[in-house]
């Protein structure tokens, strides 16, 4: 058995890094903040271009990863302290109490069925509700419930109905100390809150939603059972507008995300095609600045979206939207790029494509690790060209979106996960020789 490695974050990048390292013979501690691994990819509906259901290709990878004898999974856990240097890190992990005995819980869900308290479902972007005792999603790994103490009424119903006697209200936070040779950070991204730019109407108008909310709505296991309905009246939207670059390519001081997120054009086209497949009669317009369909097969996909699916691409970024108070339709104000005049068009639903931003709390983690962040707040590369995935601390690597929009999409995240595994193996092997 070789030196251990801590992987922080159980999204697709962290899963890939963990699997590769485990298969390479390293002991891997996969530390995930939330109750389940899966990350952002678990929330997506389908993925371009195979249109595989995202969860369907992810689930086997999640299970394969945690079943590996070399992988120890620490969910609902956070890295609190890191000491030492490459080859010899001491990592202190805090395991938060689930108030459920992980060894006993079978994930049958009877507790949740009986729980009287509800809270917004974070996994569904708060569209639907979940219980106070819950599992984030049906394919969660590990398949263990968690009690959300903030919303728990302490009624004790779950204690009584649990057939496995797994509820443990006395559970305390647990500290675990790990001796490892290297650390991989794969903490992913947050989505920019579009209500910061009030003129796009998010949180003001019901029928303005984010792309992530749309993904959950389109997803068969999502809050609407995969039925595309709009929030105001539950009707099927017949006309839908996508607005690109919400908060990205934005240098305004109070927004300050000057980079391009690299993925929004691509997922918007994918979502538009998915909607067309759901509802062939819908009228879809994508408002964009530059259509950034780079990467394998995307340009061809955009061509198809135009010619085959009849999706309208309008090269114009709307400045504002307003609401028709009678219908709750959203009126988009934009410059018609052909007539070069200001037009307004009414849509049943408007989908905003917000930029991806550093995870909340990443500064704190960076401080714990001693690693530097770049001017955007992502993990800084030791060398942007030569060592893109090495952080500024030797022996600590980063992959996935926490290194910023270097990640185009899922395959880039997977490649980065593998690449950091390689970097770890390389660096630790050289230490051994030395």
């Amino acid at each position, binding site marked *: 058995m070789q030196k251990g490695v801590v992987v922080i974050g159980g999204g697709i990048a962290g899963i890939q890094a963990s699997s590769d390292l485990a298969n390479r013979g390293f002991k891997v501690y996969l530390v995930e903040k939330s109750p389940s691994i899966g990350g952002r990819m678990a929330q997506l509906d389908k993925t371009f271009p195979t249109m595989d259901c995202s969860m369907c290709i992810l689930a086997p990878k999640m299970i394969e990863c945690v079943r590996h004898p070399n992988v120890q999974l620490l969910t609902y856990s956070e890295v609190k302290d890191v000491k030492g240097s490459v080859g010899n890190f001491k990592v202190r992990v805090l395991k938060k109490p689930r108030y459920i005995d992980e060894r006993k819980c079978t994930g049958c869900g009877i507790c949740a069925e009986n729980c009287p308290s509800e809270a917004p479902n974070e996994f569904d972007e708060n569209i639907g509700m979940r219980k106070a005792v819950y599992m984030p999603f049906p394919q969660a790994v590990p398949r263990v419930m968690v009690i959300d103490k903030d919303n728990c009424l302490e009624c004790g119903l779950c204690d009584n109905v649990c057939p496995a006697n797994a509820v443990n209200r006395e559970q305390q936070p647990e500290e675990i100390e790990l001796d490892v040779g290297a650390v991989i950070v794969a903490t992913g991204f947050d989505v920019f809150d579009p209500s910061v730019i009030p003129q796009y109407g998010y949180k003001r108008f019901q029928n303005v939603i984010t792309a992530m909310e749309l993904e959950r709505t389109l997803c068969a296991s999502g809050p609407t059972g995969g039925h595309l309905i709009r929030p105001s009246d539950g009707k099927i939207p017949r006309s839908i507008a996508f607005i690109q670059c919400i908060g990205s390519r934005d240098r*305004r*001081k*109070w927004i300050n995300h000057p980079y391009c997120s690299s993925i929004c054009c691509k997922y918007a086209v994918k979502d538009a095609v998915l909607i067309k497949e759901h509802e062939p009669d819908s009228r879809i317009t994508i408002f964009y600045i530059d259509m950034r369909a780079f990467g394998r097969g995307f340009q061809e996909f955009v061509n198809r979206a135009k010619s085959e699916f009849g999706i309208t691409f309008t090269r114009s970024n709307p400045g504002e939207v*307003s609401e028709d108070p009678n219908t709750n339709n959203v009126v988009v104000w934009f410059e018609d790029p052909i007539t070069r005049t200001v037009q307004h068009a009414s849509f049943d639903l408007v989908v905003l494509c917000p930029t991806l931003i550093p995870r909340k709390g990443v500064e704190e983690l960076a401080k714990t690790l001693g690693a530097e962040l770049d001017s955007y707040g992502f993990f800084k590369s030791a060398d942007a060209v030569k060592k893109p995935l090495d952080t500024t601390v030797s022996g600590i690597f980063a992959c996935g979106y926490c290194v910023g929009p270097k990640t185009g999409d899922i395959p880039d995240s997977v490649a980065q996960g593998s690449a950091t595994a390689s970097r770890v193996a390389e660096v630790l092997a050289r230490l051994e020789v030395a």
Partner: protein
Amino acid sequence: MKYAFFLGCLIPAREPGYENSVRKIASELGIELEEMEGANCCAPFSIQSVDYISWLALAARNLCIAENMGLDILTLCNDCYESLLMTNTMLKEDKEIRNKVNEILADVGLEFKGKTNVKIFSDALYEDIGLEKVKNAIKEPFNGLRVAVQPGCHLTKPKRIHFAELAAAAALDDLVEATGAKSITYERKESCCGGPLRGVNDEVALHIAKQKLDGVKAAGADCIVTVCPFCYFELDMGQLEIKRHLNEEHNLPVLHFAELLRMAMGMKLEDWEVRAHRIPLTKILDMKEVK
């Protein structure tokens, strides 16, 4: 508090009621207003459009006068505020341009040193006097009055641009609510009154004013309150023209914020001041009568 009082051109020429209300409030709240001897026009957009350096030099001359008085400037007008604030900020930050301007000012025996600050009436109340003190001065609150606040572009935007600060409009909202009234939200609250296009393209100016008034009307406001004399003029006088040219009647009384505050502090408007409003204030005055 003591300020160098910058009156500008428009207020003495057309809106003496505004000045009157400010002076009355100032004396009630213990604010001293020191006249700026020989001050010139702020150099608004029309002048900025002609020549950049002339604008800066003229605005800087006013700033120098205040500097020599050792006081911060109090303005009553959004355009004066914008011009003086922008100039002050730019000259403080940019050495090159400051030297250029000082070279011109040397001819009139002045030098910009960067020692004054520029405040508009609402900000001065909010930042220097404090919301509490204003609230304490309210004797006859406008409970139930639905006010559409028109902050005006040049109150909020220079700040937002240069200081990334979003609070300027909110300060005015808070002050209006201190009088007991409710500051309602309406479509295009942040948008322009159309005033700057007066004299250049009156028809377009009127259309823009109409869009604004439509939004206010739809939100069910009792009146419009503003700190800007241009917005005041455009929205008040503009309603008559909209009625005449576009055949649409809004009938929304427009008040200077200072007038609203003054009344809430228990000081009645003079007859000549009431008469100066083209859209009658009857509804609002009646409210006071009932009290």
